[in-house]
């Protein structure tokens, strides 16, 4: 019995290692298609391996962002035709309206990693609102001081210095009045 056990274990191990080595050779290819269905943004990821659609492999969809990719919903397994269907939300912002969408299979037992990406015009265009930076305000730069601020301060400074300069001129007037006599 013992011997039999050992034999069984060895057989399984052999099988397992064969399976894994074969598995690595299996490469999956993902093809992304984008379509609009009833005004919904639908993204289909077709997973094909050796020309045969692969079913029951989970595919993740994500959108490229600055620092990382934003997942679109949960991972979805491919159906019998090898297609995983995603609904992409309508409200994903983008500077130019374009979204860079990634579909990937990661750490799958059979197909390891695979990735595909595509660009589609599904983003909501956002415009950077810089009104708080660009407008004239007290917290803005020196070139963007509020007009009323510049005008009133120049007025006060001008008025005061006008009097001071007048006083200086009076000193010279005194001198003139002295030498005239």
């Amino acid at each position, binding site marked *: 019995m013992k011997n039999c056990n050992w034999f069984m274990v060895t057989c399984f191990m052999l099988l397992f290692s064969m399976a894994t080595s074969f598995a690595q050779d299996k490469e999956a290819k993902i093809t992304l298609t984008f379509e609009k269905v009833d005004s919904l943004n639908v993204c289909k990821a077709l997973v094909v391996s050796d020309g045969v659609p692969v079913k029951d492999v989970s595919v993740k969809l994500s959108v490229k962002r600055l620092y990382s990719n934003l997942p679109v919903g949960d991972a979805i397994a491919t159906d019998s035709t090898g297609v995983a269907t995603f609904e992409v939300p309508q409200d994903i912002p983008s500077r130019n309206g374009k979204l860079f969408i990634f579909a990937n299979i990661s750490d799958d037992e059979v197909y390891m990693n695979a990735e595909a990406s595509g660009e589609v015009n599904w983003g909501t265009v956002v415009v950077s609102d810089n009104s708080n930076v660009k407008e004239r305000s*007290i*917290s*803005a*730069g*020196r070139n963007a*001081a*509020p007009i009323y*601020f*510049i005008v009133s*301060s120049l007025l006060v*400074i001008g008025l*005061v*210095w006008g*009097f*001071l300069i*007048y*006083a*200086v001129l*009076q*000193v*010279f*007037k*005194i*001198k*003139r*009045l*002295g*030498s005239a*006599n």
Partner: protein
Amino acid sequence: MSIDKAESVKYETFTQEEYMIMKDDLLRPIEKIGIGAKIWIGFLTAVFLAGVFAYYLQETRGKYVTTGLRDYTTWGVYISNFLFLVALSLSSVFMSAILRLTNFQWYRPLSRIADVISLSSITMAGICIMISMGRADRLHHLFIYGRIQSPIIWDIIVVATYFVACVLVLFIALIPSLSTCKNHLHNLPKWQLKMYDILSFGWEGNAEQWKVLKKTVLILTVLIIPLGIALRTVSAWLFSTTLRPEWDSTNFGAYFVSGSALITVATMVIAVYAFRKIYNLENYLTEMHFDKLGQAMVLMGFIYAYFNINEYLVPAYKMSGLHENHLLDLFVGEEALFYWSVVFFGIAVPSILPLFRKMRKPLPLSIIALAVLIAGWFKFYLIVIPGQAHPLLPIQDVPETWKHYTPSLIELTIVAATIAGTLLLVTVFSKFFPIISVWEVAEGKLEGKEEIINYK
């Protein structure tokens, strides 16, 4: 004003004899410099130079080593001393301009003393701004990149403007005295006589010259009052434009102005006492002046007390979480002894003691004034430094020295130097120019205000 009418007539009626006595009395301190004066000037110069050396050390060795300043207390004794000097510089406003405009005739012998103190302390206050800067070598950035929205720029503008106004107020009223110096002082170095000649700007004392002079002095007198108030208020805004609850107070400008009013009265008392004793000017700076200054001190003391109640007791009544730490620290916490001494000597003593006639005699009033002045200096310390100890987010996990600021020896030397510098400027001025305006006193006498000179 009635002065304009028949101006020359009045001056013709001024008897030569009276004038000669007055002139001699007032010019005497210039003619000879005693040994005491030399020691005093030497001492002040030494302190000032020590401060210059301390500043050199501070700039070369780095502020981490030479100052007690750390991240939470970033404004230290330089800033509080700056506030004190700005307070002193309002002497011209409270002890000269306002009295002049409101026809308090006893201002006449005081006005020049007040103007000199103002000019000296605003000069030193300006230097204080530079000392407290992290990068004094970038001072020109204020002009190249200055933002009009920043209270620091307002402060620089108003300090510079006030400085010029102080120079003009002092100098224009000095012109007739310079002429007197030129005509009556002889045993002096040549350059000094030349200086009087140049600075007197061809003054002959003719009617037109008097008319122009008085008009200009009047304009500057009117101008310097709002300027001084602006100066004081802007320096208060350096604090109240921040969001720190200790400083975030609409009361702050008025509170600072009232504080400097009291401080200028105290400064004036001490200055009058010193000049009277040292230069033997008892005939001009009379007991009447101490009496009046004592009364002014009570008035200013009560006004200052009123603003203090607004500033401290109203928030204390609410005791919001924002003010709690700071106020309890001052009232019953670690700063309590410090705080209550300042309140006692800086507010209670000047408001109550001079109510008694005996306390308005020269010596007692001068002692009171000295206490007020010292308390006034520490009052600004209490506004600036503990005001930074309780930021909105608690200070945690920092070295002990970051929590408790103690000014370093170098900082204290520099502060002492700025005070010495102020005293030095006043002293040196009084050795070159008559510290009492001859013509203003004479004018008062001519207008029949005998009491100014012969007050019993």
